[in-house]
């Protein structure tokens, strides 16, 4: 599936994602009110092969959410709504709309690193994580996934999310970073800071997934720097059951999806297994 924030804010975006050959789609993180997001530049490539973005959670708000979900279901895709909020109430409100629209799962964005009051401000405090997950989980039996990022407390926060009723964890979000143009001496992103994604964060994602799997063996959706089957396979071995593609979708997305799937298939059989499931968390075996 795609990582949240890669398109997914309008029905048209869902149609586009469907054309990439993904089995499931995750919407852009929705907040209650529409958000304009930041002015460009909002996403650029880094010289280290990664991307950095500060989109500012631009989204059309809950009013448009039902149409977006409907489009996903219409296209036969497992449709996961990414839910954002700056308060418990907002999380609950957006989740309620998502559930009413028929979302197959909710992914709570507890980890956006560049929007004050949203995301990481919440996700790095295990108590907050518990409360938000608990409140949303109790709304219905639809599976709730908690998306966490890197912080000093990610293992604890993961535990709290599971305790609060999360059926799975999505790990990780982008990592706080910055780029400065050396000629104009100015930060490039309009927001000054942003979240780094892509290959630079992959080894961080592998560690986070490994640590959390080791502690709780939960279902994990691995995301961060997947650019080929090898980077995907590493996350599986660390403990991820499902995977999301983020910034790599900026380059030949359809081919990317195909080649990751095909590479993984070959890999599984080369290692003498039949299903990817058999390889989940295998790196933990002594």
């Amino acid at each position, binding site marked *: 599936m795609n990582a949240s924030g890669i*398109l997914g804010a309008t029905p048209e975006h869902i149609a586009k994602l469907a054309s990439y050959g993904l089995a499931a789609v995750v919407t852009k993180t929705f907040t209650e009110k529409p958000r304009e997001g930041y002015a460009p530049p909002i996403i650029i490539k880094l010289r280290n*092969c990664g991307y950095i973005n500060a989109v500012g959670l631009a989204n059309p708000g809950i009013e448009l959410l039902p149409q977006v979900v409907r489009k996903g279901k219409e296209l036969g895709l497992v449709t996961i709504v990414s839910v954002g909020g700056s308060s418990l109430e907002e999380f609950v409100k957006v989740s309620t709309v998502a559930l009413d629209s028929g979302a197959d799962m909710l992914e709570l964005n507890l980890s956006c690193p560049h929007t004050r009051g949203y995301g990481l401000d919440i996700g790095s405090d295990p108590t907050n994580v518990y409360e938000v997950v608990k409140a949303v989980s109790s709304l219905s039996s639809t599976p709730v996934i908690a998306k966490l990022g890197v912080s000093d407390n990610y293992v604890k926060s993961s535990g709290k999310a599971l305790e609060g009723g999360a059926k799975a964890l999505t790990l990780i979000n982008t990592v706080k970073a910055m780029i400065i143009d050396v000629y104009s001496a100015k930060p490039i992103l309009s927001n000054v800071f942003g979240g780094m994604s*892509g290959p630079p964060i992959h080894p961080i994602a592998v560690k986070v997934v490994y640590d959390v799997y080791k502690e709780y063996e939960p279902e994990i959706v691995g995301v961060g720097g997947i650019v080929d089957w090898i980077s995907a396979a590493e996350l599986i071995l660390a403990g991820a059951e499902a995977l999301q593609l983020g910034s790599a979708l900026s380059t030949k997305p359809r081919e990317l999806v195909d080649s990751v799937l095909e590479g993984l298939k070959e890999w599984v059989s080369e290692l003498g297994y039949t299903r990817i499931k058999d390889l989940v968390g295998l790196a933990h075996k002594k």
Partner: protein
Amino acid sequence: MSRDWFPRSGDETPHEHTHLVTPARVYFNNVLSSRFRMIKVKPLRSLVTPKPPQFFMVWVPGVDEIPLSVADYDEKSISFIYEVKGAGTNALSKLGSGSYLGLKGPLGKPLNIVEGFSTLLVVGGSGVAPTPYITKYLASRGCRFEVIWGVKKRSELFNLGSVMSGVEYIHIATEDCSVGYCGMASELTRELVSKYKYDLVIGVGPKGMLKSLCEVTSGLNTYVVLETMVKCGLGLCGSCVLPNTDKLLCVDGPAFRCEEVMQYLRT
């Protein structure tokens, strides 16, 4: 399996350079006409050669990043023709020679221009911006071409020939009838296509003009170059989506066949 051992996003393929912000130094930044200005810059590392109607996201340090079509390009420099509209283009107009800006691109899909195609290029409004580079490219592909340039009033005009090479003929159409053809570019187009045969028609300009163009050239091989709100240029943010389609202008466009976007043009 070994062939793809390296990350796809390794910097070795030119495709990937196009997402970096390449610093560039301003050569000059001049007024062309009452409506248009032209800026010529020197990229501080080599760019991937753009093919029309590809565009760049032009970063005005500390202010904005705006999509601009390539007006001219050679190995040492790249030029843009632009109209001052809001904060971004205004800040751009203030950059003196020696200042720095950033270039992300070329972005978008090249037009598929077949060797020797006889082509009609219809431009209106700020659609004139990419004209010099489109015609340069057409010439390099051995295509005969004619240009129709429609403006509201005479003062918008500038000597297109001075920034353009190989132009065979420019038909000027003014809405105030002050010069050349009296009327809209699309009306002149209707007249020309009924008289001559073109393998390819390309339209660049405001939505209304492009809609008319698609109508008057229906049945022909017509591409229209659109504008939407481009924020990332990379196919990630979705701001450039064409409503009611699954097309992203920044990766699937900015040129589309009339059939693909007729519904959008009508809205």
